[in-house]
């Protein structure tokens, strides 16, 4: 077990190195003239040459690569072409908002996806099962950015129930001091006991939260359903049933426990997908997170910033994959 975890962490690190290498190759080998982009369109050849020297682009490729890795190890992702600010500093500003959104979506996926999957498995091949199967595939097929607009249309324009976007209303920030502990408003307002802010932040996170949760909800529901169906067909469940144990007890006490492994794995993996989905959704809700940062960087083709976000997201992805594998490894039935 220990050697497995060690090996798994090592391969995770190798994969991460690969990701970094691929982005480096893409950024430096594809002819894109980064120095010219750095100094702007009206620069003289001398200025471009100077920028090349300043950015270390005049050195041979392997040395550039080594320098790049050295900087990365120090946590330096380079500077943004657009703002000329260190990208690491900018990311730190945007990450908490996105993290809050992704975690909110995660909670929704657990609270809605798992019961939906259980229900679907219990009523297998009945109308409700078909509807739930249709929805779970439907959720995966929906363009997140369109769902965002649709929800705004219904809940903001149509019903007037929820705000159009933002993390918090301006009125609330006038009357209350916004706490800053973790950068996640819901958590911060809860731990400081500021319920006015909590309520306002909750109202603001509902629509973007639902939008990004749809995909993991569908995925978790499908996974729970198929895992549960498989387990309910096992011999040990048949023998428990033959003792006259009630169907509810069979489900809750014996079957469900064994579906947790695959469900947890899918949940963890879908988090990575959710993170990328925020790139499409955040701008629509004016949510000041990584997604909005990517969207503005994309418009200005600020590729060092995009690569910074990529490396961050890929790191999250690798870590999430690792966690998913460890969850599987925790299952006593799995042998190494």
């Amino acid at each position, binding site marked *: 077990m220990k050697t497995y975890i060690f090996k798994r962490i090592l*391969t995770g690190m*190798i*994969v*991460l190195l*690969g*990701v970094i*290498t*691929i*982005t480096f190759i*893409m*950024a430096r080998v*594809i002819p*894109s003239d980064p120095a010219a982009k750095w100094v702007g369109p009206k620069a003289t050849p001398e200025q471009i040459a100077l920028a090349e020297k300043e950015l270390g682009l005049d050195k041979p490729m392997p040395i550039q690569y080594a320098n790049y890795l050295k900087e990365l190890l120090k946590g330096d992702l380079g500077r943004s072409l657009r703002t000329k600010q260190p990208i690491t500093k900018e990311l730190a500003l945007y990450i908490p908002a996105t993290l809050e959104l992704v975690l909110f979506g995660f909670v929704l996926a657990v609270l809605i996806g798992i019961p939906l999957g259980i229900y679907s498995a219990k009523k297998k091949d009945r109308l409700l099962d*078909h509807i739930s*199967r*249709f929805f779970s*595939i*439907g959720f*995966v*097929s*929906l*363009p*997140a*950015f*369109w769902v965002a*607009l*649709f929800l*705004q*249309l219904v809940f*903001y*324009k149509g019903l007037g129930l929820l705000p159009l976007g933002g993390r918090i209303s301006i009125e609330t920030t006038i009357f209350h001091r916004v706490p800053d502990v973790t950068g996640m408003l819901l958590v911060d307002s809860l731990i400081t006991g500021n319920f006015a802010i909590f309520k306002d932040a909750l109202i603001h996170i509902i629509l973007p939260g639902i939008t990004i949760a749809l995909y993991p909800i569908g995925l978790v529901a499908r996974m729970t359903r198929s895992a549960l169906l*498989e387990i309910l067909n096992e011999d040990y469940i048949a023998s428990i049933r033959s003792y006259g144990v009630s169907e509810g007890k069979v489900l809750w006490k014996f079957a469900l426990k064994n579906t947790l492994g695959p469900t947890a794995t899918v949940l963890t993996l879908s988090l*990575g*997908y959710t*993170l*990328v989905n925020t*790139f*499409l959704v955040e701008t*629509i809700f004016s949510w000041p997170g990584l997604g909005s940062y*990517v*969207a503005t*960087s*994309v*418009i200005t*083709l*600020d*590729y060092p910033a*995009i*690569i910074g*976000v*990529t490396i961050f*997201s*890929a790191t999250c*992805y*690798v870590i999430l*994959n690792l966690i998913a594998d460890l969850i599987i490894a925790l299952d006593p039935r799995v042998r190494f």
Partner: protein
Amino acid sequence: MNNHVIKETMKPKIKAFRESIYLLTRNKLTAIALYIILLIVLVALFSPYIIPYPEHISDEANINNKFLPPSGKHFFGTDEIGRDIFSRVLYGTRVSITTGILSVGLAVLIGVPVGAIAGFIGGTIDEVTMRITDMFLSFPPLLLAIVLVSILGPSLNNAIIAIAVSWWPWYTRLVRGQAISLRERKFIQAAETIGTPKHKIILKHIIPNTISPVIVQASMDMGGVILTIASLSFLGLGAQPPTPEWGLMISISRKYFPDVWWYSIFPGLAIFVTVLAFNLLGDGVREILDPKTRKK
């Protein structure tokens, strides 16, 4: 002799094809999906001839008709320069299906030979190839495509390249697995003993025998690929105006949202229906191929 062999080998193939169509249409949801895809393909093929306002595909339009809500004359309303959104959405089918096929095709073109070589040759080449695919697969596909297009420059062609670059490892892994099992088969070993060069074995025996799972996988990927193209265009990295691409249309429509809601809603519905149909088909195919669920 040759003809005879072809006839003998074709018979079970035709039978298998009929059988799979029967299995596919047995599930109602999958059957509906199949019909929708058929309709989508027909629309994609004939859209220039069936849309009510073919001139609205480019920038030409009557600005006086801008932002008309849906009506009998304009089913989906009109956009900011008075173009018929219904015509543009229908024509968008052509754009999405073509780019989808091209992206998947390019991914197959890269992935299949690499997988066949890795699986058949084995050893270090296989090990290195697999680690490279691992690296590519550790990116979320959309993210990799975003990075690539932002370096290459935004255009529909570059979006296709970017999607192919992020999708090929799936085909490599699939074909590699097949190639490894084929390597042990008698006919391949026979070809090796009579001294057929390796590249010929790969081209003539390995790749043709991996085609059916590749086609199945490609059909399952279409939904995700079309969604990715729409997402890239939404971010401004794919199709450029005045191309009637669904994601791009939604991106432009945001400026006028929520007052001109029809401009955003209908192209989104088109994406949803198309992607859903492909995903339902993919799900149906998976269920047929999965021995656990097949028996029912």
